[in-house]
């Protein structure tokens, strides 16, 4: 009987673990920030939503986007959409992405947003994050956070100046006008997430 119950609950938890898609309600989570405090999507009072960005210390694509991520936060946090940066990488697979190095990086770049550590990688899996950086924009609907945009920040990782399609900003501007982002999904190249074995 015990074995049957165990198998059943395993199957249930497996089936519950399909990743979020556009329109999904995202379950609350709380991860350790670089200041030691636990932070979730709701960290800014009166927010209209949140810009979740899976990113890390070592990936050249993440590094190339750091200033643009800071700029997104500075522009959209006052409008109700702050950035929440999440490092999803396993430290054994990627020592440069340790919690201690997160603290250093955030200080160097003076990140104005929380930079939290997804140590178990459960949040990255729930979102279906595949690379760094990977952007998920959520809109608050009553008490739920609903996924509205998945993808890239703009169309040129290498050069902010040459980027002429600002996907994330377009998505946020649409959401601020109570419209749905179009496109709602954009792909980009990035570093693979370092999943633990």
């Amino acid at each position: 009987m015990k074995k049957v119950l165990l198998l059943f609950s395993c199957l249930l938890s497996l089936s519950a673990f399909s990743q979020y898609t556009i329109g999904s309600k995202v379950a609350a989570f709380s991860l350790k920030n670089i200041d030691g405090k636990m932070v979730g999507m709701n960290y800014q009072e009166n927010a209209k939503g949140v810009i979740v960005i899976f990113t890390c210390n070592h990936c050249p694509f993440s590094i190339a986007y750091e200033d643009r991520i800071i700029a997104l936060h500075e522009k959209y946090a006052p409008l109700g959409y702050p950035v929440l940066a999440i490092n999803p990488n396993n430290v054994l697979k990627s020592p440069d992405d340790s919690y201690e190095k997160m603290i250093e990086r955030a200080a160097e770049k003076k990140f104005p947003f929380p930079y939290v550590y997804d140590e178990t990688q459960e949040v990255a899996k729930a979102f279906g994050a595949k690379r760094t950086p990977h952007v998920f924009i959520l809109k608050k609907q009553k008490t739920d956070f609903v996924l509205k945009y998945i993808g890239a920040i703009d169309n040129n990782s290498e050069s902010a100046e040459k980027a002429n399609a600002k996907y994330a900003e377009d998505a946020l501007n649409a959401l601020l006008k109570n419209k749905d982002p179009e496109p709602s999904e954009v792909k980009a190249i990035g570093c693979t997430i370092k999943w633990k074995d």
Partner: protein
Amino acid sequence: MKSLSYAQFEKEMAAFEGEYLIVNYWATWCRPCVEEMPDFEKINAEFSGQGVSVWFVNLDFNSAVEKSVMPFIRKNNLQSKLFHLTDTDPNTWIDKVNKEWGGNIPATAIYLKGNQIHFWARSTNYDELRAAIRK
């Protein structure tokens, strides 16, 4: 190494006359990519002349080709065919490689007479590549 757009690369793939084409997407800064390259080189060497080819497609920034990619190629004496994609907006071609691909590298696509039979958005190794080409 040939620098070209994805549209041009598609034409190169269409012109491939061999049996198995193994396309590996990589970058010099991508550690798991670099770690698996010897396995691809081994397959390319072992099956050269038997209708199997490995093509490495580099995704370093355009500005990094001279200073990072070329030295890497020389240092590692890469023998497989080399390409570099110049498109700056990969959203235009990622889905063309495979709709399931989230854009993370390394990634490997294997084609049998032009039809994609495998797509791995992850690392691979000699044994898995060997099993895929059934020679």
